[in-house]
């Protein structure tokens, strides 16, 4: 085996194993034939192999039509919203666990902060395995539990004034609501086989442990900071997978809608507004960039 062949074989490892078993020999022959006695792969060829391999690994290469891309992006958005929601709400149970472990049994008085992440977890598992009806029910119950935890259970007080919308002024409120809307749309789409459902609960657990503001990391801005980092990554990786900026845009709707609700309620109630224009402009700019990236990448991916 020559040095060039060894390098190409190494680059071909970017592709999934099943794809390599089918294609690697054939690709290697073409790579060696087009190499023109070069001693190492050209940068252009190497980049194309890495991008092709990543697209095959993410499944983006199989999303040819607009409808397939849209359906997959919608499912990814719903699941990502549930993971994001879980990250925002997981701080409560983690803090309780830390308190119980360090100080012994403890009665917090209210259990909303356990009920809401539990419902989100059910919604996440159900959506990952393709049980969308159950996922919608759990997501809607999450929204109701969030509103109930902020306003109590008397329906007459739920929408009597802008003060009753205080739960919608924080980003925690929106992921479950947006996810239920996305899941509702998925329910009407043709059913497609679910692949690697375990990825999502594992991702949810990792995000909750690493990013949920809790005594473990002591970092209250982690979810928003990681969301902005994800949006930047999504724009960079848009040429590989057009679904990434779409998912980032949907996730960014949560803080944006929370901010919009806050501004609306502040104006209605005549509150003294404590608004950072810079933060709003940064959020708007990030959303515009992800929107542009998703439009360009989506159009490109759907083209033959």
């Amino acid at each position, binding site marked *: 085996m020559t040095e060039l062949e060894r390098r190409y074989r190494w680059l071909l490892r970017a592709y999934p194993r099943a794809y390599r078993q089918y294609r690697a020999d054939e*690709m290697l*022959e*073409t790579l060696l034939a*087009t190499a023109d006695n070069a001693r190492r792969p050209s940068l252009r060829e190497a980049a*194309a192999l*890495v991008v092709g391999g990543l697209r095959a690994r993410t499944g983006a290469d199989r999303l040819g039509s607009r409808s397939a891309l849209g359906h997959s992006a919608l499912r990814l958005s719903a699941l990502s919203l549930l993971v994001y929601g879980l990250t925002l709400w997981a701080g409560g149970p983690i803090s309780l666990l830390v308190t119980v472990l360090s100080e012994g049994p403890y009665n917090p008085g209210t259990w909303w902060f356990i009920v809401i992440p539990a419902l989100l977890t059910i919604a996440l598992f159900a959506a990952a395995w393709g049980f969308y009806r159950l996922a919608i029910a759990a997501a809607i119950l999450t929204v109701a539990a969030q509103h109930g935890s902020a306003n109590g259970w008397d329906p007459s007080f739920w929408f009597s004034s802008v003060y009753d919308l205080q739960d919608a002024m924080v980003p925690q409120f929106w992921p479950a609501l947006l996810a239920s809307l996305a899941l509702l749309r998925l329910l009407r789409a043709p059913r497609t086989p679910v692949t690697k459902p375990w990825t999502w609960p594992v991702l949810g657990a990792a995000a909750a442990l690493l990013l949920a503001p809790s005594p473990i990391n002591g970092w209250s801005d982690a979810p928003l900071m990681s969301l902005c980092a994800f949006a930047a990554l999504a724009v960079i990786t848009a040429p590989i997978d057009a679904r990434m900026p779409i998912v980032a845009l949907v996730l960014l709707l949560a803080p944006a809608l929370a901010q919009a609700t806050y501004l609306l309620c502040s104006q209605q109630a005549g509150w003294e507004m404590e608004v950072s224009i810079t933060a709003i402009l940064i959020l708007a700019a990030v959303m515009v960039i992800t929107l542009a990236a998703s439009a360009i990448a989506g159009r490109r991916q759907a083209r033959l």
Partner: protein
Amino acid sequence: MTGSFASMREPTYFILAALQDEPLHGYAIVKRAQELSNGRVRLTTGTLYAALDRLTGEEMVRVAEEAVVNGRARRTYELTQRGMSALRAEAERMAAAASVVRDRSVRSTPAAGWVVPA
């Protein structure tokens, strides 16, 4: 027929064009596409096989023959009827687009006796 296929990217067009005369294997497609495009389309192997996967999925290209050469699998690809239709539709679309400019330049040729300033 023209309206039934969305416009294609240039590499896809020249891959289909490379296969219109005879079935070819990967390296031959790269070379033929380069010749047909006067050297403009230089397909990388990653791009070629991604496009072949996509075109096979769209039933525009199919594997004509599988053989083992020098101990490695070699597949030869050929155009399907659907692929040929898509290629012709794209060629007609581009010809129609080109005619918009060509016809106009013929009409706007200066009439006899009309002097163009130097």
